[in-house]
């Protein structure tokens, strides 16, 4: 089981309670698709992904970015049992979506960059550490049901 300090718990609740999902979700996914273009393989039916401008303006990317970000909500609410909480989603990503788990890390890195851009100097090293630990636990849980 993952051990969380009081600071880590408070930080995660704080970040997500103040999170602008409508901005951060779309930006994180768009950035992931732009910075790591091979991730486009998972979005064949999203239409125009030909260049950065198209990706940033693509409504399907924006909508899906929000879905993915809200997917983190269940971990925020169940920090003491993230592994079990994501069992179903893990099976989904493996068996149905066939997503290479390496991509979780790529999206996570882009999410961290977007959150850093939003929070500025309040994204201190301590906050960054808590955030990255949280994301790492989610990624581990999401990869667990792959075989």
């Amino acid at each position: 089981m993952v051990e969380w300090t009081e600071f880590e718990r408070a930080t995660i609740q704080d970040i997500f309670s103040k999170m602008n999902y409508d901005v951060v979700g779309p930006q994180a996914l768009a950035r992931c698709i732009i910075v790591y273009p091979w991730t486009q393989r998972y979005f064949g039916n999203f239409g125009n992904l030909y260049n950065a401008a198209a990706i940033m303006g693509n409504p399907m990317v924006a909508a899906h970015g929000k879905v993915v970000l809200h997917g983190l909500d269940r971990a925020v609410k169940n920090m003491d049992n993230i592994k079990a909480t994501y069992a179903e989603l893990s099976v989904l990503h493996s068996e149905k979506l066939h997503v290479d788990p390496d991509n979780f890390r790529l999206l996570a890195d882009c999410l961290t960059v977007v959150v850093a851009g939003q929070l500025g100097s309040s994204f201190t090293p301590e906050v960054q550490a808590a955030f990255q630990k949280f994301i790492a636990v989610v990624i581990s849980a999401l990869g667990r049901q792959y075989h």
Partner: protein
Amino acid sequence: MSLSAKDKLAIKTFFDKVAPKAEEIGNETLSRTLYVYPQTKTYFSHWADLSPGSPQVKKHGTTVVKGVLSAVELMDDLKGGLLTLSELHAFMLRIDPANFKIINQNLLVALALMFPDDFTPEVHVSVDKFLAQVSLALAEKYR
């Protein structure tokens, strides 16, 4: 994943803005590397204070970022231009090259929080490619 003309222009333009803040960026980058990835502290056991913002962290962070800025000028031949630095990292410092990825990620975070409007996704991809090339050039003399 080599650098296109578009990448090089984006990198030069962006780092021209970054250069005046080298010290701050260096401090943020190294502070975060040491704090968020504690295993990196093993390379600095000879320092008194490894906490974010300490004098040694600030000084060394500046050194590292100035190294990256010098690589911008050497973009057309990173392997040749960074030869001496590669020898330093390979034979003297003997830093595991896996750590280049870690410091690169923290540099991106520092750039994102200090230049939120300039660090667009297009700049991000060019800088990410550039840092990967720099890391490769730094690792050149390892074996």
